[in-house]
């Protein structure tokens, strides 16, 4: 297990490096010279040339990549092109806002999704099951940004129950500011998780070990909990683990719509300004988190399922 984890961590580093290299190559191809952007339209050619040298843009691409990764391993993600502030600081300032947003989003939606899916499976082919199916498919098909726009419209503009803009200050205020964005991001995950849990519950419910538990007179409650649900949540854990990537991309839209600080908003702003070091730094960190989330979900599954543990 320890060896497996170490192996996966090394692999994670490789994945992140490949992802960031690809991004750097893409930025290289995109028109727009960073040096020109920094200096503005009235810079002299000599000045541009000197800035390019200072930024290392005159050197071959491969050398740029090697230096880039060399710096990263020393903890240096480069500097903001305009302000000269360290990218690592900027990213770390914004990261908590996004992390809390997606954590809250996935927690409420997974909890509700599991309950909804489980009850649908237990009450299969009743009006509840049908309704939950319709709601699930409905939420899955609504993109997060549409949900965000309408939740702002309904709850902030019409009803005036919740604030629409910013992240808030202080504990209670931060929470009220978190509700709508976390709702908007999480909604479709209720549907995903509910469908997944329902399907795997139905599959597990028909298995012989459930009938055997029943043959020993165990209560339905106990059978549902430790013989069905305990196994049926496993695919949902994988789903959530890989879903972190989708949550980040949903966070990009939602943070912009709610004018909320965070990695997503940071990336959008940096891309608009061609502030490439920030784009690279932010993508590096989010990729790292996504890869880590997949690893964690695999480890959680190994923890819950002894058959998987054996294979590690």
């Amino acid at each position, binding site marked *: 297990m320890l060896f497996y984890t170490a192996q996966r961590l090394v692999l994670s580093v490789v994945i992140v490096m490949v992802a960031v290299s690809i991004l750097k190559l893409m930025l290289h191809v995109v028109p727009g010279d960073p040096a020109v952007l920094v200096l503005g339209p009235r810079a002299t050619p000599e000045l541009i040339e000197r800035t390019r040298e200072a930024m290392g843009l005159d050197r071959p691409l491969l050398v740029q990549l090697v230096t880039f990764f060399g710096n990263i391993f020393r903890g240096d993600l480069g500097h903001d092109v305009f302000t000269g502030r360290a990218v690592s600081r900027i990213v770390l300032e914004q990261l908590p806002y996004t992390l809390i947003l997606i954590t809250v989003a996935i927690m409420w939606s997974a909890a509700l999704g599991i309950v909804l899916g489980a009850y649908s499976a237990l009450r299969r082919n009743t009006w509840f099951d049908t309704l939950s199916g319709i709601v699930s498919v409905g939420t899955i098909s609504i993109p997060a940004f549409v949900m965000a726009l309408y939740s702002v419209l309904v709850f902030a503009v019409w009803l005036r129950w919740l604030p629409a803009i910013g992240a808030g200050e202080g504990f209670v205020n931060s929470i009220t500011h978190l509700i709508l964005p976390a709702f908007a991001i999480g909604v479709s995950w209720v549907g995903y998780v509910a469908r997944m849990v329902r399907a795997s519950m139905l599959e597990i419910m028909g*298995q012989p070990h459930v009938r055997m538990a029943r043959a020993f007179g*165990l209560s339905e409650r106990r059978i549902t909990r430790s013989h069905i649900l305990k196994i049926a949540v496993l695919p949902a854990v994988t789903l959530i683990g890989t879903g972190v990537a989708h949550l980040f991309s949903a966070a990009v839209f939602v943070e912009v719509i709610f004018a909320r600080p965070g990695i997503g908003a940071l990336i959008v702003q940096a891309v608009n300004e061609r502030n490439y070091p920030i784009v690279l730094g932010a993508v590096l960190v989010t990729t790292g988190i996504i890869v880590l989330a997949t690893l964690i979900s695999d480890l959680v599954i190994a923890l819950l399922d002894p058959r998987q543990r054996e294979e590690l």
Partner: protein
Amino acid sequence: MVPTALNAAASDVSGAASDTLVSIEGLSVDFDTGRGTVHALRDIDLEVPRGKVLGLVGESGCGKSTLAYSLIGLLAENARVAGGAIRMGDQDLTRLGPAAWRDLRGRRIAMIFQDPMTALNPVTTIGQQMLDIQYRDKTGRAAKRARAIEFLEQVQIPDAPAKLDVYPHQLSGGMRQRVCIAMALLTQPDLLIADEPTTALDATLEMQIVSLLRDLQRKFGCSVLFVSHHLGTVAELCDEVAVMYAGEVVEYGGARAIFHTPRHPYTQALFDCDPARIKEATRNLPTIPGTLPDLRQPPPGCAYRARCPHGWARCEREHPPLYAGAAEGQQIRCHLADPEEGAA
């Protein structure tokens, strides 16, 4: 039908003190399917003797598993008891609600299933599963653990204490079936239902499990309903045998009588097809020609007549009752066994 009336009268009078643990009286079970109602069990009369092993034999689809499941109330969702009664003590099991069924299961009735590979919860240790089924006992965890170890030793699992911390997938099929037997016996049931417990195992394991079951049955004295299509294991294990065909009991009697003097043509055909009984070398294994009748519309006469080499006009017309055979207690659902037919 004379024997039915006798059975019903006997169980009414004697009750719990009789030699019969469970008395099945005219039981019919239907399955509602998309293509009509399947009459899977029709008017079954059978008694599970107290402290003995009753074998249930027949080809796939004859209703033997349906009968076994109806005795523990675990029929499929689309199945329903269409008539008759299952009497155990002063209860009619066909009238029990879910709570009453739960109270019987794992206390008075236990079951061993066909496939040990999937019968145990894959994500819970053997020990925890054996503790879970003792939920009725008010004893502590240590006492329950000790009891689990005791029964694992009863089924001859080596190094039993260490096995408590093992997950099912870490055990072989034979070991898992032993665990299932240990769990079933641990509840000290009056009736143990074994639904083809050796079918999923290979031949050497099969005999081990059968002899283990026989030894433990003698030791604990519970009644066993042993469902199998393997005649050899039935001969090895059972005191009494019921042969089923197309949802009916076609022959019933002591194991010795059934194996030595089978009277029903279907029973005889079954024995002729048993590879263990073939004495001459053949290219093809013998089979019974034809197939089971459509149980959505069971034929009016004898259910077996379409495949029977002896059938005549009466079989077409008249549904045979259970006739008494030569051996004590032997009953045959065939007009050939009708004493008047012999006299005529």
